[in-house]
């Protein structure tokens, strides 16, 4: 109580007379998520914080301070730049370049047709083949993509969702070809359909069968590839779609709990599965809010897994996550400024204890990044890691009145949302998430937040340097070279797909696809059949078409 009265005295004697002479810069100080930030935080703001209960020690429950006992003193985070464009040949070259430059893990971006489960020769794919990422139709493309890259020595992440089971099967097939035992395969498939329906909007079949397919991957993966992350439960895209930090956290963790409930319904062993679940968050501009979000995420997840779902294995309680800096903060105007934005966001991710990090390239508001821009983005991480010293002690901001108060506040607000979702599902978070998607709850909340933010930008309450302040005429703005995808890629990709279709054993493909259809109809695990089809060189489009035939195609009701 002494602090309280002392603070009041300070306000009365020192602050108020000062404010009269010299008012503050604005009436309200807010984060990018419209959270009001106080003038000063003191012990009073964290008087209920119990160190052992709420923070604990790194590598121990509830993991607020980090999931490993030594954190970056032991091993730095994985520097993992997302890459993919053109055909598998071009992306294979970029992968090799990144490994040579000191990157420690690969991360694959696919083009839109592959993401949506369409082959390169599908009419809707016209103009999109190899444009936003690498085009993959059959196992033949994966053989080129991983040519000269030993799968027992790198871990590879795949940003892919509706067609994730097919891509996962292709990776296993390449491992089999290289003679790498499946239990040695390391990597991640995103495989998170709930956030697709909520925010990123890439889908094939409706939500419920989509989750069934994910649980198929879980069931297969626990047994076959125990070192592989079978899902990356993602808030990144929710945030990019315009959500607040709290919404990103709450919706992502609710999705995670929904997958846990779906797996439990299937009868899977939670302590076998949970260590193979991983997360993926956004790191946005409001520096402290982001750090608090990462710390709160670990605490909420640990408590939910242990207390709500009864996981016994400490490995199950640990929320491990990948971070990407916020693409939506990159500006087309004065693009070099983006390097500084990315640096601040990357620093927040590191201070928040991320396990791996992608830093965006400064030219990505204009096009896919050039090699030079990617190198600067990677160097940003290396400078933080080796020069700044922030990686040398664990969770350095713990105990800050502000950071701890903000961590508590974000946790409280996220739990409120999660309870709301639970009520929507009458006690089941899985059902609550399904209903939330069906009723457009998540979509509306996010669109509303995005609109509020836009209004704040236009009124000048939120400042974006170079956009609504400190602007320069367009003619004077820096020209940056952008990467162009040669339309030749589409022709070459379709050519190769045709050739594979001619050369493969057509009967084997037909048989494998028929068996997959039967398994899907009988509600058997589809993974072994998808793997068989992949090995017979069935295409992504052909396999996804079978699932669409069984489960129907999803179309979102249009809502603003």
């Amino acid at each position, binding site marked *: 109580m002494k602090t309280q009265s002392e603070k009041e005295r300070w306000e009365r004697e020192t602050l108020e007379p000062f404010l009269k002479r010299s008012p503050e810069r604005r009436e309200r100080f807010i984060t990018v998520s419209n959270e009001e930030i106080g003038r000063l935080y003191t012990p009073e703001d964290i008087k209920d914080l119990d160190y052992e209960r709420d923070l604990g020690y790194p590598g121990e429950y509830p993991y607020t301070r980090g999931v490993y006992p030594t954190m970056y003193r032991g091993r730095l985070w994985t520097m993992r730049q997302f890459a993919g464009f053109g055909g598998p040949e071009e992306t294979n070259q970029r992968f090799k370049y990144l490994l040579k430059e000191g990157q420690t893990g690969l991360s694959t971006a696919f083009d839109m047709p592959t993401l949506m489960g369409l082959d390169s020769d599908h009419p809707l794919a016209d103009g999109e083949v190899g444009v936003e990422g690498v085009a993959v139709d059959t196992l033949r493309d994966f053989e080129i993509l991983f040519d000269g890259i030993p799968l027992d020595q790198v871990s590879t992440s795949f940003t892919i969702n509706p067609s994730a089971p097919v891509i996962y099967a292709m990776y296993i097939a390449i491992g089999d070809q290289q003679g790498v035992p499946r239990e040695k395969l390391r990597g991640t498939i995103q495989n998170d359909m709930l956030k697709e329906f909520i925010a990123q909007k890439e889908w094939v079949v409706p939500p419920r069968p989509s989750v069934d397919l994910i649980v198929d991957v879980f069931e297969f993966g626990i047994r076959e590839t125990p070192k592989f992350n079978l899902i990356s439960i993602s808030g990144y895209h929710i945030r990019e779609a315009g959500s607040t930090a709290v919404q990103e956290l709450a919706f992502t963790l609710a999705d995670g709990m929904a997958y846990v409930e779906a797996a439990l319904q299937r009868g899977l062993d939670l302590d076998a599965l949970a260590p193979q679940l991983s997360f993926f968050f956004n790191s946005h501009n409001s520096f402290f809010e982001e750090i608090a979000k990462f710390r709160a995420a670990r605490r909420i997840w640990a408590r939910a897994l242990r207390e709500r779902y009864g996981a016994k294995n400490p490995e199950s309680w640990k929320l491990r996550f990948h971070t990407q800096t916020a693409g939506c903060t*990159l500006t087309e105007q004065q693009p070099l400024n983006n390097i500084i934005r990315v640096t601040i966001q990357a620093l927040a991710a590191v201070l928040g204890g991320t396990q791996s990090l992608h830093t965006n390239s400064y030219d990505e508001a204009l096009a896919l990044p050039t090699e030079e821009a990617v190198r600067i983005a990677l160097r940003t991480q290396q400078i933080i890691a080796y020069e700044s010293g922030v990686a040398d002690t664990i969770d350095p901001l713990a105990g800050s009145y502000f950071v701890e108060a903000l961590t508590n506040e974000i946790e409280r607000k996220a739990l409120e949302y999660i309870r709301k979702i639970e009520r929507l599902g009458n006690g089941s978070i899985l059902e609550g998430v399904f209903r939330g998607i069906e009723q457009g709850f998540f979509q509306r909340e996010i669109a509303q937040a995005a609109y509020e933010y836009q209004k704040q930008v236009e009124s000048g309450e939120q400042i974006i340097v170079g956009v609504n302040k400190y602007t320069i005429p367009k003619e004077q703005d820096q020209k940056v070279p952008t990467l162009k995808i040669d339309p030749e890629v589409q022709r070459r990709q379709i050519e190769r797909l045709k050739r594979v279709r001619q050369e493969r054993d057509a009967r084997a493909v037909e048989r494998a696809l028929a068996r997959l259809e039967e398994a899907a109809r009988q509600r058997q695990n589809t993974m072994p059949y998808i793997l068989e089809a992949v090995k017979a060189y069935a295409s992504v489009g052909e396999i996804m078409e079978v699932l669409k035939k069984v489960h129907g195609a999803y179309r979102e009701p249009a809502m603003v």
Partner: protein
Amino acid sequence: MNRPIRVLMAKAGLDGHDRGVKVVARALRDAGMEVIYTGLHNTPEQVIKAALQEDVDVIGLSILSGAHLTIFRKLTELMKQYGMDDVLLLGGGIIPDEDKPILEAMGVKGLFGPGTSTQEIVEFIRREVQKLRAVGV
């Protein structure tokens, strides 16, 4: 002459980036326009069909997949085919500078990239629709 401006906001192509299109749709609505949103993943044919059915003054097409040249080419060809020269065609999304003259030559009247204020779009539409209507009468 005084009927409210009707706008079709559309997403074509395979990408699901709908943050911008939804923000703009809300802003146009708040500015008194009638806004119809198509939802995601439309073909150019579907966009044209909706525009004709809804008798709109403006089509705002959002693309962030990099397929803008292919999709706008198809769309503008269809607009010519259906004699829609009184409809204002606008584009939003990530469009590299060097592609802008190509799109303008096809008949795209305004391109709005990241960082554009919604007010700028509202004013642009009001001005251009007035011109088109003046020609029409």
